[in-house]
């Protein structure tokens, strides 16, 4: 049965399903209990599953992830909430040197079936540290997988898949889209769902391939609509999995279109866009009519809220890049 849900509510429902499905699943983080998290993604879960399973932790991110590692060794499946993107760094050591490496270190004897949920990205008018896009830091880290959802349907399914996976997964939630609504098949069986680590064509097109993920999928789709009115058909691919990347559909698309634009909020330098450009160029060298262009946040710290509209990629900047691929 399809229900109209926001992304936030879909995540909430997905987490509820995950808690129901496996008694080993735990939710831990700052304010995830009575408050339901500052974005209410865990709303009502402590009430229904108890303080033993939905745990308000002390205020220290390394402690959250570090104790989750121990709980995972004990056989639990912790879902850790990091309150905002900019507050994941105190846990960086535990994530990079422990969570990511434990399976390798143990030659497969210790699994870290952990999900690290991070509301990420800008556009919400917040103060410093609340609008970061740290995905490159995780995607560059071997041993972690990184995904991001862009629709309520994906939010609902992907969070359940991530919790069910034995891989440690950084789950990036497009916080500024939490309130966007869409249809969600709430009763559908997870077994038949679209795979977690697969990209998906969000809108077919013939002229330029536009790659986006998380909050920028909407932006790319808006750009595609505007371009269509001008007679240009953009193929928008929602990457969904940021590490490992699923690029076969991308290569196929770029070989057709000959042009590619990558969009993300994170700074450009050594970002996901660079990897995409490098891989696409290597695989589609003779098909490209223009280099892969990147539309990204600038290589500055995230600016004050009243400047973020200029900082963030928007419809116009995507179209500008599309134009440039034609003018090459």
């Amino acid at each position, binding site marked *: 049965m399809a229900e109209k849900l926001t992304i936030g509510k879909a995540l909430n429902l997905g987490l509820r399903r995950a808690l129901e499905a496996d008694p080993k699943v735990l939710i831990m983080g*700052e304010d995830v209990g009575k408050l339901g998290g500052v974005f209410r993604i865990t709303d009502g879960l402590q009430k229904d599953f108890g303080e033993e399973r939905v745990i308000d932790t002390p205020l220290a991110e390394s402690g959250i992830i570090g104790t989750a590692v121990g709980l995972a060794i004990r056989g639990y499946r912790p879902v850790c909430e990091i309150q905002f993107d900019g507050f994941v760094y*105190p846990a960086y050591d535990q994530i990079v040197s422990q969570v990511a490496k434990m399976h390798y270190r143990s030659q497969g004897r210790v699994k870290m079936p952990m999900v690290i949920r991070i509301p990420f990205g800008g556009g919400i008018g917040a103060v410093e540290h609340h609008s970061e896009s740290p995905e490159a830091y995780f995607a560059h880290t071997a041993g972690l997988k990184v995904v991001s959802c862009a629709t309520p349907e994906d939010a609902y399914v992907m969070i359940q898949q991530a919790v069910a996976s034995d891989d440690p997964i950084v789950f990036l939630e497009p916080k500024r889209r939490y309130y966007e609504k869409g249809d969600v098949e709430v009763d559908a069986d997870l077994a038949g769902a679209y795979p977690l680590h697969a990209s998906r064509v969000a809108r077919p097109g013939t002229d330029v391939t536009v790659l986006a993920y998380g909050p920028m999928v909407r932006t790319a789709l808006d750009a595609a609509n505007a371009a269509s009115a001008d007679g240009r058909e953009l193929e928008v691919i929602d990457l969904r999995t940021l590490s490992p990347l699923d690029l076969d559909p991308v290569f196929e698309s770029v070989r057709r279109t000959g042009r590619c634009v990558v969009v993300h909020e994170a700074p450009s330098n050594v970002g996901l866009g660079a990897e995409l450009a490098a891989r696409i160029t290597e695989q589609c060298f003779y098909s490209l009519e223009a280099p892969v262009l990147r539309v990204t946040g600038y290589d500055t710290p995230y600016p004050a809220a*009243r400047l973020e509209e200029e900082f963030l990629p928007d419809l*116009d900047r995507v179209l500008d890049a599309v134009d440039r691929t034609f003018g090459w």
Partner: protein
Amino acid sequence: MTKGRGAGGESAPEFVQLLTPDGERIDKVTGADGVEYTVDFTDDEYRGLYRDLVVVRKLDAEATALQRQGELGIWASLLGQEAAQVGSGRALRQQDMAFPTYREHGVLYCRGIDPIMPLSLFRGVDHGAWDPNQFRFNMYTIVIGAQTLHATGYAMGITKDGKVGNDDGEAVIAYFGDGASAQGDVNEAFIWASVFNAPIVFFCQNNQYAISEPIEKQTRVPLYQRASGFGFPGVRVDGNDVLASYAVTRAALDHARHGQGPTLIEAYTYRMGAHTTTDDPTRYRMAGEVESWQARDPIARVRAFIAKQQIAGDDFFTEVDELARRESLALRERVLAMPDPDPLTIFEHVYPHGSPLIDSQRQGFAEYMDSFEGSSH
């Protein structure tokens, strides 16, 4: 010492109190650190403290109102914590240095700083840019606990500069919350401060909550006791008592400036309002709890004391209210008049020595913006 009421309902250890909720003056008390505390204010000084408390609360209320009206992006109110902030803020000497969190508007005011200073941050105009050394007040720090290490390093620098050991010595005060006490950084700051015997006062405003989480989620013993395990004194003060907050902070700062090392002060207080304007405290705490703390209001007791002691009459109270009203109106007007930043400032100050990458992005951005000139964009 006086019995306070504990976190989580159990009866709390005693704290230093010099003014009861009813406005009764206690002459002297000995803190958990064994120090005897008292104050010796003139009537003028008592009136000054009252004035600061009232103005600070009023400005805070104005900022909350501005946020409600969409003029600020967010506001972190100090409501209920005025005494801890005014008491400690007034205890600072000119040469001392403060490292605030995002809530120390009252301390800032007591440093003689224009209260408009942090509002650009909450409006989203900038990140709260000022020169810490000019104001002897560091920029607001949002990442919980990070500033306690900065403060400790700064204090180590004071020692290196030979600026400790007498009355003219410099001292540092680092503010943080009860929630912050759980961060590794804060505990590392305790270690550094004690190992290097840094001239620093750790001032923890235990306002009972870290957003929705009550203090029991951060510790199972009173926070001031944390210090002993690191080898320096800790003391709990009634953070709703401006006199005690002053006395304890003053003594700890003097201790530090004389080269006797760090102190942890736990100011036992209460966040009367929401965590920030985006928070909804009704989800996690009872109205009754808030009411019980209202009876311990930090301003009411000073007013009662001043009235009982006839330090001032009704005229004075009216005058102060009037002053607060004027200051808050002025603040409002200046907030509304704040210009939006020029978009090109995105690219400013990334590096002292600049970067060709930023230069080319700035140029690309400028050209891109120019391309809309005359268009409807």
